[in-house]
């Protein structure tokens, strides 16, 4: 076993490996010290535990790929949704001008996110998942094409409701897994930069719904109110939280912060299980 070669290989995918393991020299010395005391058969296990310790708060390459594929699945859902919308403006009833331009802008971003994540996953040595329009049922009918949003591409109100749900869910999905990407450097930065773009989209879609009197919503999420109805409640449950890291935000320091403002001022994450339950009816 050539330990120096292993470190060099790791260094190619993780330039900070020596910071995690102190320095190259002390790493080698430590390894030799350990190796000298161990039988040859035990060396791989000792090596594994040394790296596990260094990466204890950092996702492994496989975990990073898993998280990025999770994000990619959601980006495909959004990208295919808006691609379909852009070719269906007339039947949906999206007004020409600002509204069509906004949906087109969002489409462009979601397609860019798909491409970016595919490249990132391949670059990390993983295999990106692939979806096409045929994999999705935007009526939430699980393939029946007759789910609760059956008129999603013929009714502007329904279309924007589904869009809002996708955007807000996307924001919550990224947030729910950000902590797993701690100390992953560029991977985390990229995920955060996509996350905040999704939040910008969400705010704009919500303004579009408000402007059309489709729902009494603000650019931010108030309590666990959907502004849509019970069909999408799962995407908003938990947003009513007003306690952050043990600190009660409502009325904090006597400054008159209402429970509504307290809930609005922090967006909440969703677990993968919660997100998958939400998007399951949309994926065939």
């Amino acid at each position, binding site marked *: 076993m050539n330990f120096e070669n292993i470190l060099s290989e790791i260094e190619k995918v993780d330039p900070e490996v020596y910071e995690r393991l102190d320095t190259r020299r002390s790493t080698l010395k430590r390894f030799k010290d350990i190796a000298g005391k161990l039988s040859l058969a035990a060396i791989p296990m000792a090596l594994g535990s040394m790296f596990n310790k260094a990466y204890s708060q950092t996702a492994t390459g496989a975990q990073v790929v898993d998280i990025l594929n999770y994000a990619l699945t959601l980006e495909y859902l959004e990208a295919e949704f808006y691609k379909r919308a852009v070719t269906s403006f007339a039947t949906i009833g999206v007004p020409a001008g600002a509204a069509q331009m906004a949906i087109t802008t969002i489409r462009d971003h979601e397609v860019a996110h798909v491409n970016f994540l595919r490249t990132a996953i391949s670059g990390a040595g993983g295999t990106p998942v692939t979806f096409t329009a045929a994999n999705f049922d935007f009526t939430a009918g699980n393939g029946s094409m007759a789910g609760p949003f059956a008129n999603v591409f013929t009714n502007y109100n329904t279309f924007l409701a589904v869009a809002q749900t996708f955007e807000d869910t996307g924001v919550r999905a990224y947030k729910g897994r950000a*902590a797993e990407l701690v100390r992953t450097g560029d991977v985390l930065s990229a995920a955060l930069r996509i996350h905040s*773009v999704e939040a910008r989209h969400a705010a*704009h879609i919500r*303004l579009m719904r408000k402007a059309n009197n489709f729902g009494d919503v603000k*650019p931010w999420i108030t309590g666990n109110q959907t502004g849509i109805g019970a069909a999408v409640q799962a995407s908003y449950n938990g947003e009513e939280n007003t306690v952050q890291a043990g600190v009660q*935000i409502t009325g904090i320091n006597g*400054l*008159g912060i209402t429970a509504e403002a307290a809930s609005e001022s922090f967006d909440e994450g969703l677990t993968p299980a919660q997100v998958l339950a939400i998007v399951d009816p949309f994926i065939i």
Partner: protein
Amino acid sequence: MTNKASLEKPTDGLPSVSRRKFLAFAGASSGLVLAGAACRKNNDAGGVDLGSGDTGILNYAYALEQLEAAFYIQVLNSPYSGITAMETAMLRDIRDHEIAHREFFKNALGSNAIPGLEVDFSAVNFSSRDSVLSTAKTFEDLGVSAYNGAGRLLTNPAFLTLAGKIVSVEARHAAYIRDIISNGSFANNEVVDAMGLDVIRTPAQVMAAADPFIKTSINISNLPTS
């Protein structure tokens, strides 16, 4: 109902009941923060030291939230001419969100928190919609880029989650402010690049941009850079 007067009272002297819970939960890093009395502007060696490690990054966020909160308090105190009822309501919401963020960091940091910063809004014409909203746009986009850039500097996953909970709200603010300046500019190519990624800035870049609005000298030299 929001009590405007109480929102504007100075933010000092709160017993941090919840701080210990927070610190225990988060496994707080130490990091000595010097509440520098002598504030020598533009001198990295002096001024208010944000501190090091995760504490430094949380103080960095606290500094930005102080700036934003102070700005919106002033906006609501002296509304620009022609402000609509909807704009008043939304800007009041934003003010309250920023105050909530500011107070959260203050309580969470406890004795590690930097003192209140002195702001300088002399470049803002608060009676002008254009001046106010363009400043708001600057602050919100800057805040988004700051949190996006700070994430990789944090070592505690719990802090990262908290930063994530705040940054998306700042992005919602940014989108709203941009849209009422020019509808459809919520995520235009000033802030989102061809790969669909939002703006990202280092603490040094952010503090340079914020510098004209902050009188207090801030020392960022102990912040982590990678």
